[in-house]
């Protein structure tokens, strides 16, 4: 139970664009690598549910929102830079990049 709830991620996209597909693929890849079985990804297509954009303060797409654990973190872009995503999600500490 605890493991399942450790990472709750939400990916906001606007339609099935190349960029959103890339982002989702990247995200899946990192999650499988680093937190297998401990995450849940929810994909929200804003073209279908525009009213949800305001709640999570979405400006850009694609945006990945880490709902859990708190605090909320946002990563925008196609998530092509693995290190940045992992740091952003606080999966690896920021120091490791500097080192």
């Amino acid at each position: 139970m605890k493991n399942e709830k450790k990472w709750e991620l939400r990916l906001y996209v606007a339609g099935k664009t190349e960029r959103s597909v890339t982002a989702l693929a990247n995200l899946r890849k990192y999650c499988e690598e680093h937190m297998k079985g401990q995450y849940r990804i929810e994909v929200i297509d804003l073209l279908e549910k525009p009213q949800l954009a305001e709640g999570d303060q979405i400006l850009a797409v694609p945006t990945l929102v880490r709902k859990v654990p708190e605090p909320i973190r946002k990563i925008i872009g196609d998530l092509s830079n693995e290190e940045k995503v992992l740091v952003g999600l606080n999966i690896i500490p920021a120091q490791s990049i500097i080192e």
Partner: protein
Amino acid sequence: MTREKKTKKIDHIYKYLPKSASGISGLDEITQGGLPTGRPTLICGDAGCGKTLMSIEFIVKGAILYNEPGVIMAFEETGQELAMNVASFGFDLEQLQKDKKIKIDHVHIDRSQIEETGEYNLDGIFIRLNYAIDSIGAKRVVLDTIENLFAGLENEAILRAELRRLFSWLKEKGVTSIITGERGNGMLTRHGLEEYVSDCVIFLDHRVIDQVSTRRLRIVKYRGSVHGTNEYPFLIDEDGISVLPVTSLGLEKQVSYEKISSGIPALDKMMGGKGFYKGSSILVSGTAGTGKTSMAAYFANQACNDGKKCIYFAFEESPRQIVRNMKSISLNLEKHVSKGLLRIHASRPTLFGLEMHLVSIYKAIREFRPDVVILDPITNLITVGGMSDVKAMLVRLIDFLQDEQITVMFTALSLNATVSEQTDEGVSSLVDTWLLVRDIESNGERNRGLYIIKARGMKHSNQVREFIITDRGLDLVDVYLGPDGVLTGSAREARKIEEETGVALRDYALNAKDREIDRQRKTLEAKISSLKNEFESAEEQLNRIYNEDILRKQVLSKTRDQMTKIRRGDEETGTAKIKKSKNEK
């Protein structure tokens, strides 16, 4: 009424460029109808210059007055904060949101929460905006302040491309939008937003001159439309923003032939008998203590006596002071105040900037609807603004008052006589009537001389009149022309006395002469009668001699006859006759 007017105006311009009335007082006049419909407008300026308020007023007025719902996308403040901020202007954002008239979407950007990796676009904002617009059928959009995106996002290249896309999208969407931006170094906005918004740019400025702040607005550009290019002062007060354009740039004003008395009959007489034209402007200038305020008070008093309403804007004295001081020249202003005909507004010029003064004057006038307005003195306003600012303000004011057919009297203090010959605050060319009260100094005393320098459209006297202030009030003394010109003060009195003495002396002299003549006549008459007597006696004498002569002749002839008779023979009868006649004699 006003709305009808505005729609008409827009219809007229529609052929060229559709405009959406902002509902902000004054702005629509400057832009000749409002902001360009369906296009973005940039409002830029320093912090605290009123960008946000202006844009919110645009939305609120649009929703209330023109039935055009609006979306506010706030990048700085939350909906609640915004609502609270503008509540003091009487804008109820909460209620408007409930009524689906407006929608506020707060965009929160926290850089610490955001990590960027790879390509992205701002579809999130597009979608939110689109959703907000569609949900209430918005016609107006405000993005306040979209530049905050630059602080929140790193990739400027993407951002700029996206902004360009956003503005063209807004145009496509057909919403009239306002984008606000903070002023940057050497640029209108910090991030060069003006580059994207090229249809209409309004620049707001908030300047502090001599510790007094003035807000100004300028339309930097407005594509496809004529617009006022000047800097227009505006202010923010409890009713929101008011921009003060020179209400009519043309000079197509109503004129009146009606006259209004100055309260001083002699002065009225100097101007053709009835006083000033209604709706005209009168400047009373003069050095200190020449009775400008008294004159203004007289005018106010006269107006109130005629049942007209009057507002007295005092920049030097408090209302009570004025009432008290005017009592000393037997002017009871108090009764007019209590009757509600006279209102005295006193404020220190330094209390606020010129524009604020002007607007408070506008407001008071709009509310009270007076027939007569008095500003005493306008010179004090110079402490707040420069000469040119004051002039600009007065131009506006005169314009406004002429439109409303209100007669206005300004008083102006001139520091010395030579300045007064020039222009006081440069308004002398604007006013219709200019009265100058001047000190005339001579013989160690100071007297007041009043003259009419100009009075448009009226025959007026060119005479310098002495102007006196006594317990009984103001009056113009009858002109006293001496050998050296007009005499004033004690010189006039002295001359008067002198002349009176002259008259008495002359009278006396005349009497003496009369008597002399009388006497002479009498002597003459006496002489004539004595001569007559003499003549008579002479005549008598002559007569006597003459008669004696005749008698003698008769007697002689008789005796001769007798003698002859005697010699002839009949002596007795002849002698007897002579004896007889001799005895008779």
